[in-house]
């Protein structure tokens, strides 16, 4: 009776099961450590990257700024020096190196505001956008042409020639009004008395709540 029981215990099947268990547990240790695959799939990223509806033109942005549209944040991805020289009103400076730091993530990974990234041209802004897109951040846009284009179109719009169509003139006048809003003063304005009441862009306090992840409740 006892021999049968020992035979049963050490029968082949238990050893095989133990071997499978050791193999699986050991396998975990030997597997090569590789980066976790962060973000969305490459094909998805490629299709998002090719489509160009992420761009916002300087005229649209000027419109939003003039009408004080509260639903977006401007993020300047240039370095501190060029940000100190000139930057768009109410822009927050997150240099490209510090894009993925913890505190800048509070600005990028939130669904409360639209985010508009800009740099001198939209080269660095595009790179920042691609990285954010890979991490799955929503409603982030890029200013087409960046600050250079901003200068060419809004701050210093070039006067349309006489043969240009009427829309060009309208565009020019809106852009000129825009430039006045952003601080450029034209000679003919000078003689209006007391015209130095500059409408400075309102200081906006942006409070960004961290996106609430659906809590996993559990317990006994």
């Amino acid at each position: 009776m006892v021999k049968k029981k020992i035979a049963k215990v050490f029968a082949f099947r238990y050893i095989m099961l133990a071997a499978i268990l050791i193999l699986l547990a050991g396998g975990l240790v030997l597997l090569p450590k590789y980066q976790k695959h962060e973000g969305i799939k490459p094909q998805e990223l490629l299709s998002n990257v090719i489509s160009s509806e992420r761009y916002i033109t300087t005229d649209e942005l000027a419109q939003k700024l003039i009408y004080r549209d509260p639903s977006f944040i401007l993020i300047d991805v240039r370095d501190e020096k060029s940000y100190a020289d000139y930057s768009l009103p109410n822009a927050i400076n997150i240099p490209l190196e510090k894009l993925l730091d913890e505190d800048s993530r509070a600005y990028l990974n939130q669904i409360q505001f639209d985010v508009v990234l800009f740099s001198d041209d939209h080269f660095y802004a595009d790179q920042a956008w691609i990285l954010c897109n890979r991490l799955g951040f929503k409603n982030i846009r890029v200013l087409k042409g960046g600050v250079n284009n901003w200068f060419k179109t809004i701050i210093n719009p070039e006067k349309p020639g006489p043969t240009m169509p009427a829309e060009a003139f309208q565009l020019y006048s809106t852009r000129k009004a825009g430039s006045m809003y952003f601080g450029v003063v034209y000679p003919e304005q000078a003689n209006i008395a007391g015209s130095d009441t500059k409408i400075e862009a309102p200081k906006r306090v942006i409070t960004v709540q961290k996106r609430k992840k659906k809590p996993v409740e559990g317990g006994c």
Partner: protein
Amino acid sequence: MKELEKTKDISIAAVLFILVVLIGLLTYERPKHLYAINTKSTLEKLTGDNYLVTLNDINNPDYVLIDVRNQYEFEKGHLENAINIYTPDILSDENSDFFDELKETNKTAVLYGKNPQQVNPPFLVLYQLGFDNIKMLAVENSYFENKLITKNSDIEKSEADITTFINESRENASIEPMDEDIIKAPKKIITTKRKKKAPEGGC
């Protein structure tokens, strides 16, 4: 004698069957393209090493020129012995094999397009897939009497100093220049760092 601990015999077949099904399910669809580096290291590499190539050193033997524009633009005019891989199908099978083979023979693929902004997306996608033998030709392509003219263009050069322009416009409009801080709206942004909400639960 009544069996003390009567247990049905374990059926190895059932256990193995379930294990095989589970392992099969888990390892079934291994995606073909996997990122090799996560976003943080991509960022370090981007801001770190120099991936830009200028026009005058493209005749280095192990550079392979790759044009990312569409076929029509490519036919109109392209740099000599450039290969045309249009951006939407850089991840197609033969193209990714082509890039793998480039990587083995450690040639560097130099991407170029109408302007550096157009090259940026394919460059970054491939870069994150682990092809670190990729460089970018910082060049502006334009046509003059349908002959391709390529000239160097440097990235992100700020063309105009806007603050001085605004100040000048103020001077010649005979008003004293605004002091610095009015233009740059002082920003005081309070981010409420919310305490990570612990998932409630337990009994």
